[in-house]
């Protein structure tokens, strides 16, 4: 949250340190079905941020008491590869990873039709392969794709993006530099097709007006990302069609 380098974050031309406009996302790439063992999988890139998701299940959990009689339970692990960060990260789960696993699980739980699979577990494993800001929201996007790829029925697709405030200006899809030097970072995930915000966090300081504008900025971007998700899923099923 240092003050000095703010001039670097937004240039005199109103562009960000990497040349983006305030409401411009980094290049997004998505691909589903990238792993053979998992029931479903996806890799998602937001710029240099790269998250791999795998879904196993619905399946009987290893610990058999860990079930609910009327629906599946969801188990989510957000984990960072040791080489994903500038300084090597210890592979033991940090407090941050424990919190984010919970926040991501809660961002998915309302859209998955858990009642279809009572007494089972659906496991979502996220591995951050490279971290450059926005890993939790890219993780939600990857998880949504992997769940769809696994054929798990969902009310709607989910996607996420983080809005930040740097040099007094609201910006879309903050990267690591903007996150660490900016004034606020607000990760949001939503299922636009059913009008629900499923992840909402604010780390930083915003006025009420900024909060509402930032949220709406995020929701517009999320609609676009969900469209890209649909494209990516379509690409896969077309590819399968061609093979058949």
């Amino acid at each position: 949250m240092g003050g000095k380098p703010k001039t670097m974050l937004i240039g005199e031309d109103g562009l960000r340190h990497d040349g983006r406009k305030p409401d411009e996302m980094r290049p997004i790439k998505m691909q589903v079905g990238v792993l053979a063992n998992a029931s479903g999988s996806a890799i998602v890139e937001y710029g240099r941020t790269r998250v791999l998701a795998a879904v196993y299940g619905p399946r009987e959990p290893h610990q058999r008491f860990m079930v609910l009689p009327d629906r599946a339970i969801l188990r989510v692990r957000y984990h960072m590869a040791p080489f994903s960060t500038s300084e090597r990260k210890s592979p033991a789960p940090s407090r941050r990873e424990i919190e984010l696993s919970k926040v991501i699980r809660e961002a998915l739980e309302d859209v998955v039709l858990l009642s279809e699979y009572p007494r089972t577990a659906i496991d979502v494993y996220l591995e951050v392969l490279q971290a450059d800001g926005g890993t939790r929201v890219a993780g939600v996007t990857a998880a949504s794709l992997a769940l769809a790829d696994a054929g798990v029925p969902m009310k709607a697709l989910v996607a996420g993006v983080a809005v930040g405030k740097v040099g007094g200006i609201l910006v879309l899809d903050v990267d690591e530099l903007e996150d660490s030097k900016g004034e606020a970072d607000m990760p949001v995930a939503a299922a636009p097709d059913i009008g629900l915000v499923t992840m909402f966090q604010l780390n930083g300081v915003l006025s009420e007006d900024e909060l509402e504008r930032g949220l709406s900025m995020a929701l517009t971007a999320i609609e676009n990302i969900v469209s890209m998700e649909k494209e990516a899923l379509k690409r896969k099923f077309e590819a399968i069609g061609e093979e058949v």
Partner: protein
Amino acid sequence: MSITPFKMPVIPIIKKQAYLSLYEKGLREDGRRLDKPRNIEVKVGVLEKAEGSALVKLGNTQVLVGVKAEVGQPFKDTPDQGVLVVHAESVPLASPIFEPGPPDENAIELARVVDRSLREVKAVDLESLVIRAGEKVWNLWVDIYVLDHDGNLFDASMLAAMAALETTTLRDYEELETGEIVVKRESPGAKLKVNHKVVTVTTAKIGNYIIVDPNFEEEIIADYRLVLAFDENMRIVGAQKTGSGGMTLKDFKTALKTSKEVAQIYFKALEQALTSGSTQWAEQK
């Protein structure tokens, strides 16, 4: 790994309809209106050996916060700042659902939300904690100890943390010729410099209703809770949706409006505790 809670008490779920019927009349089981918090008691200075302390009762919820200040090293990338650590323990005496062991995801989330709400707005003046830049700084440990869990640990913990920090003193110390810092344990010390007061307000979505300061049973039946942190200028200095339900934009705006009003009640309770001065635990009797 975060897992859908699968061992929740069933009673509240059975009672959900009864709760909803009451909400329709604008009331809650304990007679409160939907937008009112429970009775708040804030006692500061309840521990003599901690550098700061406060006991908060929010209805039947009791949270004790102790602040310890120790001489330590700064982080490498912030040589000119002290270190603030917020930690929360779900000690098993507080609730039948707590078990002995390291903090679970709920306790970690609690500590991290309180931490960020303090940190991002620079509530504690970390620069004033430097003893010798780059080498020796005060490490402030804010330990949240839930003693009795009847819901809304976020707001109770934030109130207790804030009250404890506002009454924290840093012991006097001496610098030896070797450079070592010797703390004078029995000294009264100087008051910790606090830049901003922060409270969080938690609302819960239950059925079609948004209620404030949920008790334990209300938390169980809620779709989600929204925790909003405010400073004394009513800037939003932190937020967290917790729980697995999705939130509409309309509900978000309603919750924000209600939360702003309740924040004033919390700030008032905090102010009263700080002006009424130190309170002994023994008075609790």
